[in-house]
């Protein structure tokens, strides 16, 4: 398989997953703000910090308010991480590999991009936001499902799965990070009753609540949720699961020694931590470490398999 083609497949999958997870991230934040008392003083600012795009945001906006942040996260084509930008990039990548992906998938990607782009207002205003974001998530899931069900499962599919899972692992850490923002110290007096709700909303944003209840079977506790989202092998949006998927894809690829060494190191890192003992500050640092690990894995995959300029 041509390096360029592998690279395009990989990025197409990443961008679709990114659009889906950005929608999930906005959903969890919206719910959180609705659930918590005004005194908790939860704002929208952390969401741009989590995405690492504060600088870019301030270049284009003066006010940090819900409307601006949502416009930036959903519709703004100056923001390469916005939902519309992600879907546009997914489509540009898909366009060059039309002979590799099923035609229906190409059409779905187009439809999803056009729908996301033409309805941004309903995503920005609160009233229809939920259904706008659900449509993004559902559209991305449909594409993932179509590819699983109809794409030829050769190494091209391995690059697709690697892109999707690295992006997913990255966004799972970012969604957890929303919770580790310092304004929600777990010792915060008066917020303890809400802790349960907060972590429940994280699980729900990752469609993990039901699965969590089945597997963990205790009340929703911070440490258990972290363990579930970081270290669970069988939950598809858990960090460890995603790294195992990447590892299994690498097993099908040639010249995989160095890539496998890096992914195994990252697996070891994520399993090494005891979530009970992770205070907020440590959690934030630990998440940074995981994100750095993901970047290392991406770089080594790019160096090994993609076109080098």
């Amino acid at each position, binding site marked *: *398989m*041509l*390096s*360029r083609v*592998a690279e395009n497949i990989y990025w197409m999958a990443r961008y679709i997953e990114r659009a889906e997870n950005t929608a999930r991230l906005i959903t969890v934040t919206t719910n959180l703000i609705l659930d918590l008392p005004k005194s908790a003083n939860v704002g929208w600012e952390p969401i741009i910090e989590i995405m690492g795009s504060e600088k870019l945001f301030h270049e284009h906006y003066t006010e940090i308010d819900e409307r601006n942040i949502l416009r930036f996260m959903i519709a703004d084509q100056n923001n390469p991480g916005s939902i519309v930008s992600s879907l546009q990039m997914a489509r540009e990548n898909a*366009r*060059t590999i*039309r*002979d590799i992906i099923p*035609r229906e998938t190409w*059409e779905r990607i*187009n439809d999803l991009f*056009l729908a996301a782009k033409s309805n941004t207002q309903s995503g920005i205003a609160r009233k229809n936001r939920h259904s706008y974001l659900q449509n993004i998530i559902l559209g991305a899931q449909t594409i993932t499902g179509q590819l699983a069900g109809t794409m030829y499962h050769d*190494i091209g599919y391995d*690059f697709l799965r690697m892109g999707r899972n690295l992006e997913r692992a990255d966004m799972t850490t970012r969604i957890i990070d929303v919770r580790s923002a310092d304004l929600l110290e777990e010792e915060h007096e008066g917020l303890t009753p809400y802790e349960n709700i907060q972590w429940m909303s994280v699980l729900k944003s990752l469609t993990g609540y039901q699965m969590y209840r089945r597997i963990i079977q205790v009340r929703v506790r911070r440490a258990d949720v972290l363990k579930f989202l970081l270290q669970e092998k069988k939950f598809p949006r858990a960090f460890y699961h995603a790294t195992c998927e990447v590892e299994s894809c690498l097993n099908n*690829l*040639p*010249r995989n020694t160095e890539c496998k060494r890096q992914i195994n190191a990252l697996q070891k890192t994520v399993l090494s931590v005891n979530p009970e003992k992770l205070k907020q500050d440590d959690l934030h640092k630990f998440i940074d470490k995981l994100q750095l690990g993901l970047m290392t894995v991406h770089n080594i995959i790019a160096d090994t*398999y993609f*076109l080098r300029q």
Partner: protein
Amino acid sequence: MAIRWGSYKVKGIYDELIRAAGKPREAAKPLCDYLRALKDREIEEYKAAAELAIHVMGITFTVYTEEEGSIDRAWPFDIIPRIIPKSEWDQIERGLKQRVQALNLFIDDLYHDQKIIKDKVFPGELLKDSVNFRPQCVGVSPPDNIWAHICGSDLVRDDKGTVYVLEDNLRVPSGVSYMLENRMVMKRVFPDLFEDYSILPVDDYPSQLYDMLASLSPREIAQPEVVVLSPGIYNSAYFEHSYLAQQMGAELVEGRDLYVDEKDVVYMRTVEGLSRVDVIYRRIDDLFLDPEVFHPDSVLGVPGLLRAWKAGNVALANAPGAGVADDKVVYAFVPEIIKYYLDQDPMIPNVPTYKCINKDERDYVIENIDKLVVKPANESGGYGMLIGPQASNKERDKFKRLVKKDARNYIAQPMLTLSTAPTLVGNRVEPRHLDLRPFILSGKDATNVTMGGLTRVALRKGSTVVNSSQGGGSKDTWIVDMADH
């Protein structure tokens, strides 16, 4: 009843299907009877079925890229086929093979001994000014001395019914994918007509193309690596590049996918590492092929590709420099070229062409400019052309001066009345002008001509411009064997 052949106008023109008002040509009779029996509603249904088939097969993608304009524009398709009896086609096929054989000998001669110039059959000064002659290719001998492996020659028919070659495309001729797709659409829409007729198949083209390309491989191996080199998704013919690659099972590559090492061997970059390439069906113009030799700032090409080709480590189809023979002034010499190399008379005539480089002919052109079409040698797409009968006196005077000043660069031809074929306009049929582009494959072992080719039709009333960018569309072309009938 929607279609009435009695009121279809054919006076003063040659129509491909209708001989005289209400009288179809013999080969078109079953088709015309079939169409006459259709009700308005059925015509609508067939049109809708064809559009659906085009959409489903992915020939058109316009709906998805409205905001990006020119990309993936749909090319209109007319559901009434153009029919040519096999007996007539056999003649044309022989004529095309003769022509391409002579052109290949001519190109090879120009890059070697230039005997035709020494023998004063072809004026050497024409070569000096040719924009498509590549001095970098002098002395190179491609496999079997074939330079133009894929040729698309445009055929037209005049009001008498005579078929002429209008031009030869020897660089990167396109359109063959539409020929293939048009047939697929027709089979889906009119399966019953295919039972009434014995229509010769066209769909072996991709395998013939693959066999021809594979035969050029410098390495004697069972499965040489054949790739299609495209400028990328923004090229207007990208659909065809991708389609042909898919149909041949070849990789579709861009310049940046390829790499030439210091031993002048071409590789493509794959996830397995570098992988050797034997044959490149290139759909990039000469001047963008290799920045080391041609345009230094070309990002579409591959540095070192010409080195690799000259070293014989990779085959390029068509060979760089093959375009020297599709200059409009060279065209005027094709009858002499055929005579010189093959000692034969051309089986398909050229459109009568006055070469302004010859004094007698130049004088005739200046005298009769109001009756002629004057064309510059190196422009394409109708640029810089004079249509004498429609031009003002001022324009005619301007061209008289141009022809005197730069005789080498001009040819003139009489105005042809192109043939027509019935074309659906709403639910009625009207005559529309058309041409035909067959494709000729020349390889080591065989020369193959497509069974028919791509019929392009000018959809605007009275227009003779068949280009897709200017209101042209296409039709399926049926070569029918009447002996089986």
